[in-house]
């Protein structure tokens, strides 16, 4: 038997690497274990484990007097989280994340649609470059650049002035909540920069989803009497929805957790990320910081559950 196998095998396959290949071929589950163990350990222990440890912290409390952490199970920190100021922070962050997500989806869809349906060859390359290029430069550099762009002396103001539309900008800035002294210190500015920075994360999943929609489904809808608007509503949008939801997970959760953009551009009012930063840093209140990080997790969980119930993943 062995002799036959030896004769069947070409000589250059008889070395130790050849025997290793044979072993893995005969025992595929061993190969799978070898390949999966390191990433699973990383994900399971380092990532999920530390997240769990963080969540655990939120059930401890801080001793107001000594500033030390009291390692006893309590809901006191969550009670603190639901105070009026903190609820205000949560509401502000969630509203911003929701508006940023909606605007990103509205802007990203036509771009993604063009890229998936029409762009070919060099135009497709240009599309990918255009979408990815902003990701290659430093996040901080981009945000400071936006600070200059949006400043009172910046190019946006200059542009409105040249178009004799300064009154429009001033009218917008005089509005409550969205307004401010200049765009760079208003919520409008924060919103613009969030939308700019997260845009690639919305475009790419939508483009991938649209690319998977066969052209003949669009044709079938049209053939059956569906106007372009009906085709969009009943075929294209439902089939692109998993991509939109995937993109919105990025834009929503990234906005919920960001602490740099609202600090550099916007009013001085806190967002969740800034609150976490302040609580675990200067204030030294790790339990409250942990409780704050639970908020985005709970919100995202609820969001995904709702999306699933609405059938967003039916087309998957």
């Amino acid at each position: 038997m062995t002799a036959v196998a030896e004769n069947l095998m070409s000589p250059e396959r008889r070395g130790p690497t050849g025997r290793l290949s044979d072993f893995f071929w005969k025992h595929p589950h061993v190969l799978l274990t070898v390949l999966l163990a390191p990433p699973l350990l990383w994900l399971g222990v380092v990532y999920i484990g530390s997240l769990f440890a963080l969540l655990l912290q939120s059930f401890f409390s801080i001793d107001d007097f000594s500033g030390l952490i009291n390692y006893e199970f309590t809901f006191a920190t969550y009670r603190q989280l639901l105070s009026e100021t903190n609820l205000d922070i949560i509401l502000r962050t969630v509203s911003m994340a929701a508006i940023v997500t909606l605007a990103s989806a509205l802007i990203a869809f036509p771009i993604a649609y063009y890229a998936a349906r029409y762009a070919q060859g060099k135009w497709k390359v240009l599309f990918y470059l255009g979408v990815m290029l902003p990701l290659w430069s430093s996040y901080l550099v981009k945000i400071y650049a936006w600070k200059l762009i949006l400043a009172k002396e910046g190019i946006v103001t200059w542009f409105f002035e040249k178009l004799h539309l300064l009154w429009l900008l001033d009218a917008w800035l005089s509005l409550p909540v969205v307004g401010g002294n200049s765009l760079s210190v208003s919520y409008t500015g924060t919103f613009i920069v969030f939308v700019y920075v997260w845009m690639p994360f919305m475009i790419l999943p939508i483009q991938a989803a649209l690319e998977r929609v066969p052209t003949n489904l669009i044709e079938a809808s049209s053939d059956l009497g569906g106007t372009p608007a009906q085709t969009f509503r009943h075929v294209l949008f439902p089939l692109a929805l998993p991509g939109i939801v995937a993109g919105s997970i990025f834009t929503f959760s990234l906005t919920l957790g960001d602490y740099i953009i609202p600090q550099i551009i916007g009013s001085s009012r806190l967002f969740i990320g800034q609150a976490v930063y302040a609580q675990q840093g200067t204030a030294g209140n790790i339990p409250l910081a942990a409780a704050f990080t639970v908020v985005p997790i709970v919100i995202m969980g609820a969001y995904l559950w709702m999306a699933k119930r609405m059938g967003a993943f039916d087309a998957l």
Partner: protein
Amino acid sequence: MTAVLFDNVSRHFGAVRAVDGVNLEIAEGEFFAMLGPSGSGKTTCLRLMAGFEQPTGGHIEIFGETAEGVPPYRRSVNTVFQDYALFPHLSILDNVAYGLMVKGVGREERRKAAEDALAMVKLPNYGSRRPGQLSGGQRQRVALARALVNKPKVLLLDEPLGALDLKLREQMQEELKSLQKSLGITFVFVTHDQGEALSMADRIAVFNDGRIQQLGSPEEVYKQPKTRFVADFVGSSNVLPARLCQRLGVTSSYASLRPEAIVLSAPRDGALSLSGTVSAHSFLGAVNRVVVDVEGARIAVASPVSLVVPKVGSPVTISFAADELHPMEDA
């Protein structure tokens, strides 16, 4: 009345002439087949009728109305797509009711119509399933029901049976044919399968290189191919070269001769004959295919399996009735 009229219609994609000066007239209630190899322009013609493509030249009429510039959703023409194109996110019932839904038909009414259509294609009680849960043959029927529920004036079928296995294909051929008869709707059917076209269609247009090579009844196209392409593509007829034609007294430079019109024996009275040597043979089930080399021309003969097959290399005489030899138009 004329259902579909093509007057010198062309569809060019840059330098590619997908459809090049096609004229055809499809009568109301006709089962019309467009037959040809891939890239011959038959599918583009279908897409021109559906409105997915616009002609670059010529004129199209559907039931007397100009079709150029009319979008697909304004044409009372429906298509059964090659890979069915069922909406994966909708139930079978919603798929079938889609056309009625976008036209604003009420929920109850369209549910009823969709259920009737599903019953017609022998898939009752499948309405709640998803396309992914059906087999290829079932999806094919759903696609048919989805198109027919709109009561189209013309039904376009783009290689609808291509993905089915042989048995199912034969069954669907019969069903399609009888469905067409009972509904009286004009069917325009695209296929590359000559057997399918011959068995189902009232008339066939044979396409090659964006042009119609021959248009006629299945019998005409099969028995009297006008060009070498048609002779070869429909029924795999033998094409006799000029010198053999001359010897047999045919005036044109080429003539077609069907394999089943030839017998491997000496001529009876009035029959024509040629002699050559057997160069190959193969068993095809119902017949033996014997290839005879006659002065360099390879002539296929369909010989009944009951007859003995001569050995390769042995000399044979082949004979056939004079009227089986059909002169062809072009070189």
